[in-house]
């Protein structure tokens, strides 16, 4: 009797413990959001979005150039990363044999595992030094390297998920492989592909380390893509470690804006994916 009672108690205790673990882990996200909202909400005003940073100690500056700068480097990363990921995945899913795709997949995973700071080093040696410029190009390039593996793997996964029957039907009707890919396979997998791309963008939008010695930073608007440019994550980092209260306020606000954008992108990608699977069933 005692033994069974003891086992039951252990059962109840341990199951409650796991429940507590869940509560703790899930609530961290809400804590983070909560802190950012409480500390950053007041500073998100019109000035914040439209003005340039002022010298430390002078109040009223904004982060306009960082918002646009972030957009620019992410766009560059997308322009490089989306074609490579997309077309490369088509090769892996539709054309490749055995060894070559395996090799490419392995290196893509390797690239995915490279710490972001090491990617920054690489972009510095390969673009900044020969160009003799910190630039948005270098920052965008570094970010694209982080985006490619995600886009590549996701696209390949969803291309493979398209049933072979569709492929064969298309080929049987006399379409070439290219035509099949363009008109049949990709549209069938498009939700998944889009998801992968959105996730990739969300991931790189918040990255700081690759930008530290590639796009560096800029007080003003960058006049061309060959110049250093401000970016939200780098700005948050610099402001957070400074001693100025005003900059701290702006760091919170910038953090809130960045986090909201990243979360929206993630949620959107899930939504797109869920719609895709129902559409395919229909």
């Amino acid at each position, binding site marked *: 009797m005692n033994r069974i009672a003891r086992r039951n108690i252990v059962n109840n205790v341990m199951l409650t413990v796991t429940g507590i673990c*869940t509560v703790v*882990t899930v609530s961290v996200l809400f804590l*983070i959001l909560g802190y950012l909202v409480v500390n950053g909400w007041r500073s998100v005003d019109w000035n914040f979005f439209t003005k340039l940073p002022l010298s430390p100690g002078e109040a009223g500056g904004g982060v306009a150039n960082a918002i646009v700068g972030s957009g620019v480097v992410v766009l560059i990363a997308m322009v490089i990363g989306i074609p490579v990921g997309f*077309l490369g995945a088509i090769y892996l899913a539709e054309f490749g044999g055995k060894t070559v795709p395996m090799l490419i997949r392995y290196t893509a995973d390797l690239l995915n*595992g490279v710490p972001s700071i090491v990617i920054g*080093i690489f972009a510095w040696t390969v673009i900044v030094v020969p160009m003799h410029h910190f630039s948005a190009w270098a920052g965008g390039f570094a970010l694209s390297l982080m985006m490619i593996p995600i886009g590549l793997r996701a696209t390949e996964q969803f291309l493979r998920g398209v049933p072979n029957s569709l492929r064969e039907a298309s080929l049987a009707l006399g379409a070439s492989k290219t035509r099949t890919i363009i008109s049949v396979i990709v549209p069938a997998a498009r939700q998944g592909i889009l998801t992968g791309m959105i996730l990739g963008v969300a991931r790189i939008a918040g990255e700081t380390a690759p930008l530290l*010695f590639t796009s560096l930073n800029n007080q003003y608007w960058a006049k061309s893509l060959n110049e250093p440019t401000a970016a939200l994550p780098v700005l948050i980092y610099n402001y957070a470690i400074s001693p100025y209260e005003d900059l701290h306020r702006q*760091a919170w606000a910038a953090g809130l804006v960045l986090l909201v954008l990243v979360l929206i992108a993630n949620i959107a990608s899930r939504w797109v994916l869920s719609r895709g699977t129902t559409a395919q069933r229909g």
Partner: protein
Amino acid sequence: MGTAVVTAPPQSRARNLGKLFRDGDQITHFVTFLFAASVFLVTVFLVYELWIHSGPSRAKFGFGFLTSRTWDPVADQFGALPFIYGTVLTSFLALLISVPLGVGAAIFLAELAPPRFSNICTFLVELLAAVPSVILGLLAIFTLVPIMRQSIEPFLKHTLGYLPLFQGPAYGVGYLTAGIILAIMTFPFIISISREALLVVPREQREAALALGATKWESTWQVVVPYARLGIIGSVFLALARALGETMAVTMVIGNNTGIHTSLLSPGYTIAAIIANDFSEASGDMYLSSLVELGLVLFALTMVLNAAAQLLIIATTGKGSKQP
């Protein structure tokens, strides 16, 4: 005898078009191959660049680089040990916190929670993985560090201060704080993947245990979890690989001290943190080369771990790696 004028009869014009389409396939094949190969080439190039730019320090220090404790820019003497130590220690602390928490939550979500609730919670946890590192660092500086300095670290010193692990001033920044932040960054991986591994365990296993009179906990802990252990271990490896390479949040709370310290409360350094802090300013070729070599070491570490993780996860869940 003039040259015959070759005009394609209608029939072979269609054949020509057909040939174009087949050539079109070859073009597509070639173009997509180029893009795919570029991924391979870029990665190889990356390793090559790291190797080349770390040349001077590799030549000067050899393998001793990995065991030397000195980091002296004045004397141009550099050693990786304090940073390897800091990286490994903070990652280990992170796992110490996140593995029990993560596996516990995974068990709850896989075994006990109703499916919709479980899916929602998993989704929320995976969103946590999307939070940028710099934002966690921002939070850490202004909320976690004061709490550590004012409440947690004095408490630890008070209760466990006789251990060399908890001695020294309560700075608020240091190995322990970095470990906690890394734990927050790693438990989404552990929860997500462990949950998948647990869900894959066949129902018969659980039912057999319950039929034999086991409590729900006993069935879970003694039957289901061991069955899924490869996947869970794989998730831990993946989390570890992520923790090793984390830069921003750690840089903001580790204290930036280049020594090796036993106390968890003391400030230290990780490989990623010192590269982030010093790279754009390393004046001196040996200095820069040493930093690149540190990057190479980190790269090698994460490469090995990622490979091990992939193998384990594929072995259990049958799927590829999941990027939450």
